[in-house]
C-alpha cells in the first residue's frame, strides 16, 4: 500500500523526531567524551590539558568501581524480579471477580503518582527511621530491636523503595495482558482436569510473555539511571555500600568537582547501558515482533 510518494512523506514525518533525538544524544555525549580525556577540576580551573585515559583508569581502578557496577545491576535486577513476581501475583488476584474493582485499582496504582523524592522520604522517615519510623514501633511492639535499614541494609532498602514505586506499573501492564486472555481456553483446561499451577504455567504465562518483555524493557530504561532515591535516603552510604554507577559519577562531579573523571564515569555508564541493552534485545527483543 505504500507508494513512492507516501514513503517520502513518511520519511519527512519521522525526520523531526529523529533529528532532535539525535542532537539531544550526540552533543552531550560528544562533550562528555571530550571532557573525559581532559584534566578539568572546578577547584583548580587553571590547570587544564589532555590526560589520555588517566580519568578512565582512575575510575576503573577506584575501589568503589566494581561495587558500584554490581550495585547498579543488583538494583535493576532486584527491582525487576520483585515487581514482576509480585506484579503477576497481584494481577492474578485482582483479575478475579471481586467487589469494588475500581477503587481497588485506584489504590494499587497510587504509588506510581508519587514523585521519587517524596516516595523516598516517606519511606525513609515515616517508616524506616530507627526511632520514629512505623516499622521501628512495630519491631518494639513485637519485642524486637528496630532494624537500622539505611545503616545495615542500604541496598535492600533502596531496592525495596524503588520496587514499591514501580510495582503499580508492572501490575497494570500484566493485568491488561491477563484481561485479554480468553476465558474459554482456561475453562477448557479446567474441565480437562489441569491443575491451577499447570493452567498458569502453560496457558497464562505464555500469554503474558509479551507483557513481561515490555515491563522489563521500560523498567530497565528507568532503573539504570536511578538516582534521586539514593540521594534522598542513603547518599550512597554507609561508606559506599549503596553507591551505584550514577551515584558514583554524581559524587565525582558535585563533591569532588572533578569534571574530567565524572565525564569518564559517564562514558563508562553509557557503555554499560549499551551492554545491558544489547543483551536485553538479544534475549527478549524477538518477543516484541508484531
Amino acid at each position, binding site marked *: *500500500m505504500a507508494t513512492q510518494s507516501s514513503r517520502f*512523506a*513518511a*520519511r519527512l514525518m519521522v525526520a*523531526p*523526531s*529523529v533529528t*532532535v*533525538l539525535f542532537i539531544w544524544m550526540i552533543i*552531550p*555525549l560528544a562533550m*562528555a567524551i571530550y*571532557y573525559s580525556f581532559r584534566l578539568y577540576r572546578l577547584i583548580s580551573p587553571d590547570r587544564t590539558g589532555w590526560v589520555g585515559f588517566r580519568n578512565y583508569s582512575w575510575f576503573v581502578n577506584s575501589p568503589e568501581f566494581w561495587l558500584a557496577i554490581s550495585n547498579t545491576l543488583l538494583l535493576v535486577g532486584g527491582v525487576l524480579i520483585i515487581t514482576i513476581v509480585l506484579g503477576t501475583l*497481584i494481577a492474578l*488476584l*485482582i483479575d478475579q471477580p*471481586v467487589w469494588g474493582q475500581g477503587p481497588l*485499582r*485506584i*489504590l*494499587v*496504582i497510587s*504509588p*506510581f*503518582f*508519587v*514523585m*521519587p523524592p517524596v516516595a523516598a522520604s*516517606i*519511606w525513609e522517615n*515515616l517508616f524506616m527511621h530507627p*526511632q520514629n519510623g512505623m516499622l521501628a514501633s512495630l519491631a518494639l*511492639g513485637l519485642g524486637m530491636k528496630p532494624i537500622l535499614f539505611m545503616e545495615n541494609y542500604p541496598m535492600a532498602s533502596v531496592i525495596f523503595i524503588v520496587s*514499591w514505586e514501580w510495582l*503499580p506499573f508492572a501490575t497494570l*501492564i500484566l493485568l491488561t*495482558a491477563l484481561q*485479554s486472555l480468553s476465558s474459554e481456553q482456561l*475453562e477448557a483446561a479446567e474441565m480437562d482436569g489441569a491443575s491451577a499451577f499447570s493452567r498458569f504455567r502453560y496457558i497464562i504465562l505464555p500469554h503474558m510473555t*509479551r*507483557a513481561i518483555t*515490555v515491563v522489563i524493557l*521500560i523498567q530497565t530504561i528507568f532503573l*539504570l*539511571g536511578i*538516582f*534521586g532515591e539514593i540521594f534522598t535516603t542513603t547518599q550512597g552510604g554507609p561508606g559506599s555500600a549503596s553507591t551505584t*554507577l*550514577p551515584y558514583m559519577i*554524581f559524587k565525582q562531579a558535585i563533591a569532588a568537582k572533578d569534571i574530567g573523571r565524572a*565525564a569518564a*564515569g*559517564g*562514558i563508562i*555508564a*553509557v557503555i554499560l*547501558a*549499551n551492554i545491558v541493552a544489547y543483551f536485553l534485545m538479544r534475549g527478549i*527483543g524477538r518477543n*516484541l515482533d508484531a
Partner: protein
Amino acid sequence: MARAVSPRRKFLTTLAAWSVALIIFFPVLWMILTSFKTEVSAVASPPQLFTADWTLENYAEVWARSDYPRFFWNSVVISVGSTLLGLVIAIPSAWAMAFVPGKRTKDLLMWMLSTKMMPAVAVMIPLYLIFLWTGLIDTKIGLVIALMLMNLPIIIWMLYTYFKEIPGEILEAARMDGASLWNEILYVLTPMAIPGIASTMLLNIILAWNEAFWTIVLTTTKAAPLSAFIASFSAPQGLFYAKLSAASAMAIMPILILGWFSQKQLVRGLTFGAVK
C-alpha cells in the same frame, strides 16, 4: 476472565485483594494522615492512626514558608508544555512508522528507546553547560524542551502501538475517496486515535510532573517546579514529620487526583503494545 464463582470464594478473594491494595497504598495514606497531625503526635509511639488534635497548621506553615503557587504553576507549565510539544513532534513520526513501516522501523524505534538508557547523570555536566551557554538555565522553556526530549521516545512508542491497532483498510478507503495525506491524518486517523493520544498525554504529564533530576539540576528559583520544592524540605531528624508530610502531600496531590480521575484512560494506554 469474568466467571461465575461462589459468593464465598468472591468474598475471600475480595478480602485478599483489598488487603494487598491497602498495604500498597498505606504509605501514601499514612503520609496524608501525618500531614494533619501535630508534630508531637506525628512521632507518637506507638503510632496513632487517628489523633484527637487534627490540625491544618502544617499546611498553613508550609504555604507561608514557600511560594507554593509558583512551584505549582511551574510544574503545570513544564509537564503540560513538554507533553504537548512532544505530541506535536511524535504524532507524525508514530503515524509514519505505523502505517508506512520500512525495513528498519523496528530498529529505529529501539534506537529511540535506547537514547533513554543513557543515565542522566552521565550527561549532567554537558547539559548543564549547554543550558548555561544558551541562557536556557532556570527557564520554563528550557525545562519544557529537556523533558520533552527525555520523554519523546516513550511518547512515540506509545502512539506507535496505538496507531498500529487502527486497521489500514480504513485509511485506504479514505485515500480512494481522494483524501490528501494531511486530511487523512486530521479527519480519519486523529478521531480514531484520540483515546490513545489521551492516555499517552496523561502518562507523560505524570512522568514529567514526577521527574526529579533535570528539574532540580537545571533550575534554581524562577522555573523550579514541585520536585525542587520538595527537595528543599529535606528530611529533618524526625522533628518535622508533620510539616514534611504536608509539603509532600502538596507536591503529589495534584497529580494523584488527576491520576485517580483519569485512571481508566491511563490504564487503557499503559499497555505499550503488551497486548496484541
